[in-house]
């Protein structure tokens, strides 16, 4: 069932177009995640849903009704902002209890709810303290508790984990999903970390400069990005793009590069318009096989730099003047300028039209 619908939503500040004809639906009880680089318009979109900003054009529907002119406080939408301030002279408990006090809930109900959410966010030890004694991450968790403790139709969470420490963030991801199921509520959640978006969202929406590029389930977004921006943005380390020429010879199609040649006849239907033109080949780092010794059909590259991540080692390899990212074996040592061979199969590649930047394969 459709909970929230945005129809042709646009927003400009002066001459600057911040949201450009956004259309999307969020289903009831869905965990909907919006991701995009800074300035993509994520916060503005949430503010429009919450009623804190008026769209320049378009409609917002909640439960099938247009709510453009409904006062923010009557929308029953709870919002958490990335830079939300706590009340400095109220304790942690009173900060969280605040929205419940406004609703005049009975005292024991307030207590119960505040403790429940504090337990979940690991902040019980902060309930009696004042905000000025909180560390950065502690303050953010208390603010988050204040947004979640309310009873609302939709919870809008703007970068709720951005200041929370990494360990807690990874735990919080799994907890967030669980929490949302448990509350049975609709969440709209933003993050500039596409991996976090994949991890928490039932569906993920990628925005760029005020436009929606793609909305899909996490695995589809990763495996079937529709254009170059999404392909490059979603994934860490990001996808590699190698420019090749698509050639035809006796009924076979192959990608030609001065260091390699790859048969792609099986994709004929999708790419036959591009014969004799330059195309980009997209290949994710994890699909590149790396070998220290020469391998059959291997492409020679030079190690430019490495990044140690414990369980993984990211290799930056020079191929002509391109930098290729690949995953190395963290137990081996790769020295600067060492020659290594890489290879990948046509099963794992994407082929992109260089002009339209659309992914064809």
């Amino acid at each position, binding site marked *: 069932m459709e909970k929230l619908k945005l129809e042709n939503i646009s927003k400009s500040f002066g001459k600057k177009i911040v949201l450009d004809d956004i259309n999307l639906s969020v289903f009831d009880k869905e965990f909907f995640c919006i991701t995009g680089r800074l300035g993509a318009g994520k916060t503005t979109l949430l503010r429009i849903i919450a009623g804190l900003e008026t769209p320049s054009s378009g409609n917002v529907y909640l439960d099938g009704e247009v709510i453009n002119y409904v006062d923010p406080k009557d929308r029953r939408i709870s919002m958490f902002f990335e830079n939300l301030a706590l009340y400095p002279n109220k304790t942690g408990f009173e900060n969280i209890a605040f929205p419940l006090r406004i609703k005049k809930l009975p005292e024991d109900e307030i207590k119960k709810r505040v403790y429940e959410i504090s337990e979940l966010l690991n902040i019980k030890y902060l309930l009696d303290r004042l905000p000025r*004694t909180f560390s950065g991450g502690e303050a953010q968790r208390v603010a988050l508790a204040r947004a979640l403790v309310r009873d609302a139709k939709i919870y809008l969470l703007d970068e709720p984990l951005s200041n929370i420490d990494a*360990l807690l963030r990874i735990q919080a991801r*799994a907890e967030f999903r669980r929490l949302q199921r448990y509350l049975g509520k609709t969440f709209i959640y933003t993050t500039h970390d596409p991996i976090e978006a994949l*991890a928490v969202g039932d569906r993920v929406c990628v925005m760029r400069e005020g436009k929606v590029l793609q909305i899909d389930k996490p695995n589809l977004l990763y495996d079937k990005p529709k254009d170059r921006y999404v392909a490059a943005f979603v*994934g860490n380390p990001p996808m590699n793009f190698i420019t090749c020429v698509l050639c035809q010879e006796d009924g076979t199609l192959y990608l030609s590069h001065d260091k390699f040649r790859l048969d792609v006849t099986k994709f004929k239907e999708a790419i036959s318009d591009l014969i004799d033109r330059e195309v980009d080949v997209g290949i994710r780092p994890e699909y590149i096989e790396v070998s220290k010794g020469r391998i059959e059909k291997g492409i020679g590259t030079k190690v430019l730099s490495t990044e140690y991540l414990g369980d993984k080692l990211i290799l930056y390899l020079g191929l002509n003047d391109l930098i290729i990212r690949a995953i190395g074996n963290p137990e081996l040592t790769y020295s600067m300028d060492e020659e290594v061979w890489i290879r990948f199969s046509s099963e794992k590649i994407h082929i992109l039209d260089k002009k339209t930047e659309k992914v064809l394969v």
Partner: protein
Amino acid sequence: MTKILLEDLTKIYEGGTVALEDFNLEIESGAFISLLGPSGCGKTTTLKLIAGLLDPTKGRILFDGEDVTYTLPQQRGVGLVFQDYAVFPHMTGYENISYGLKVRKLSKKEIRDRVIEVANLLEIGDILDKKPREMNISELQRVSLARTLVIKPKVLLLDEPLSNLDASLRVRTRIELKKLQRILKQTIIYVTHDQVEALTLSDKVAVMSMGKLQQYDTPKNIFLKPKNKFVAGFIGSPPMNLIPCSVIQKDESLMMDANTFKIDVTELKDVLNDYVNKEVTIGIRPQDITPSLKGGIFKAKVYSVEHIGMENIITAKADDIMIKSIAQKDFIPNLDEELWFKFEINKLYIFDKEGERIWRS
């Protein structure tokens, strides 16, 4: 170029919070080190003590052998960038960045050159005329970073300077910071709760918990040879699983009993002989646990599944323990489904009751 020594540094805040306790650290001149730890562990407090913004309750701070514990902040040659960016609201970006140089009475031309240089580095060349209220969080953060970098302090203290930047800008700024340090040869202390940043940037990482130093070591050793349970459970993405067990002897064989499962560890007899009938904790990295539909060491119910692109993180619950494991991306179990999990003995880490590591292969 300054060598920093922290000796028994202790800070107890009014109200009794022990933020830092007997903290000892030796930072080589020109080194890039990170303070890594969860929210509230005392990272910011440590930086404030080094910068001279707080007086310690006990202990000493030495710069190149000289006691500076009570030296005025402005005489220490230290630059500090805070996580909550500090900028003058009434000044433009340019005025903010050049402020410290003006105070130092540099020539107009030199001021201009240096401001432009850092502004380009941090990609804020086009907002130098803007006032802080017209900037977004990430721009503010970069202006505040530029303000300090432009002065070229001998010791640079950075308190999560990248936390509000989006992922790709963070990666680029990280690389630039590292390059900058090689050129300027400053001693850098970098505070972060993000282990990826700590592991990839620093020569050495100091892992902290509750005001205490847990381990000070190279990134590789922090990951492969965690000194104790805390470090093991903090590092890795997701971090190591820690499962309480008791060691029991049955005839000739030694078993590890975790309630949910038992494993035969007779081959570790030499290590475990002293621990029979005692409590220990075993540690196993998510990458080393394989979930499958049938066959394994123990059964657990799927609690949450996160698709993070190249792989899936599966969190499962067995009695009251939560286990995270990494699965192939096409392995997608249902919530609450029962799965088998297995791992190899030689991938185990073992910690004693106090949390110290007693074994790894």
